[in-house]
């Protein structure tokens, strides 16, 4: 997905800092202060985004351990704590999610596909063989990406694009 959220935020930050900030009146102290906080908040969010899912996963396991240890000391609460811990653990990945590594691996995989297609050349027979595969996968991926940027207002058929959760889930059930 390009631009990713972090890159979008970098563009937003740049426009605020380079275009909006100079346009604010020097005596608009409150607006200047708010803008300063917005810029710092954007920097903070950009640092956090790659680790947000990992933080949730970590917290699920950490809280589950906490709950189980506490359950051993509080027999009256043991059942409720155990069930809550199990529910969280069931949804949390067993290993630490590494979003930057995952993004890099997906990009490398797509690059390998792209190279294979480019190197296949323009022989009509080869193109006829790979064409349907390329088109089918591109259509599925495009549906997700259209949904991702639907709010930009360019989509020719916004009502025809399913909700994001639905199109993402379809990729795991096919």
């Amino acid at each position: 997905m390009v631009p990713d959220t972090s890159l979008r935020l970098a563009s937003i930050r740049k426009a605020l800092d380079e275009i909006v900030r100079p346009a604010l009146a020097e005596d608009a102290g409150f607006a200047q202060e708010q803008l300063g906080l917005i810029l710092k908040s954007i920097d903070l969010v950009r640092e956090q985004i790659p680790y947000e899912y990992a933080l949730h996963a970590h917290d699920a396991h950490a809280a589950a351990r906490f709950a189980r240890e506490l359950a051993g000391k509080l027999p009256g609460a043991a059942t409720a704590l155990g069930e809550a811990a199990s529910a969280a653990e069931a949804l949390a990945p067993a290993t630490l999610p590494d979003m930057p590594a995952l993004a890099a691996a997906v990009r490398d995989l797509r690059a390998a596909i792209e190279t294979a297609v480019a190197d296949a050349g323009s022989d009509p027979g080869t193109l006829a063989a790979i064409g349907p595969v390329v088109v089918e996968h591109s259509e599925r991926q495009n549906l997700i990406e259209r949904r991702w940027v639907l709010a930009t207002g360019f989509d020719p058929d916004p009502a025809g694009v399913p909700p994001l959760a639905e199109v993402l889930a379809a990729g795991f059930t096919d």
Partner: protein
Amino acid sequence: MIDHKQAPAEDWIAAVRARYPTERTVDEALTRKLRARAGPPYAPTPPGEIECGLAAFFADKAPGASVGDIRPLGGGASKEQFVFTLSEGDSRATYVLRREPPESVVETHRGREYELMRAMAGVVPVPEVPWVDPEGVWFGRPSLISRFVSGVTKPPESHSNVTGLGSGFSPEWQARLGPQFVDLMAAIHRFDWQGAELGAFDAPPVGSTAGVHSVINWWERVWEEDSFEPLPLVRYVAQWLRAHAPPIGRVTVVHHDYRAGNFLFDPTSGEVTAVLDWELAHLGDYHEDIAWSFQEGYGYHDAAGRFIVCGLIEREEFLRRYAERTGFVIDRDKLAYYGVMNCWKSTVMVLGTAVRCMIGGKSHQDILLSWLAGFGQTCVVNLLTLLKEAERGS
């Protein structure tokens, strides 16, 4: 988001140039872009810098003239623009300085734009272009100065998305502008370019696919240089275009971005006052231009299901009038082919180059380029549709 393309090595640049041979000056512009990529990001130009640059430039080019009223001009996703006045004795005229940012959504050659705009003067309404700084000697980056032309790109009452895409024209405006839109394209294509000074352009041979392959190489090279996220469809379509390239039967000037938003008109008289944005122009097949203006994203389907080209004129009416004005044969298969090619080029620009600009913070319009990613996905939708239609027809 950093990769090897963000600071390209000289041997990688040489390999890319060798793999995708294209026009000399296209190669010059793209190579210059790569060699400057590792440089600093865009920073807003201090008002005094443009003032000093203009003063020095005109001290050399028009001694005695004075520059004033400098202000930024909005609009345009690819170049910085500044309006200023130039006074010489009793005369006073308004001009526009178009300066390249460090990188932009399209990397083009100011010398080509300068030559072609001068060649088209008197053929279609086009801003007078008295000066060019192709190497950025005077303004730090390549720049071009044209006469300011008044006019608007969309009716005052319309509410379009950014950059003129999807501009809304009422039936009254369609009646006033639609015929002119066709006639001006016809005039561009009828233009006898062989008698013009167009030394920056490589003319493709008639009856050959060489010029088509040159264009495919141009844009696949751009994808190779700029893309961050691989998109296998782009490579597949490049090969498909090579496999199906039609020979060019008649070489004409191709504006390459002829659409609503890229011409000015007088909001009172309805007369077109200028055709703009010639930076992508080249010599090629007129079907390429027609198909460009036929892109779905630039028009709409009316209640009867008819496609309204650029929101201005119904597609079949466009073709009938164009054929009348030019006498050229319209080859529907070529239109379909160039429809695929143009959608593919738009995809390259928006999902490849625009994202690369953002990664480097190289443009004055990074936020707009970020927003245009939404248009990029529309390009992919349309590309897939047109590709399937063209394959059914071939």
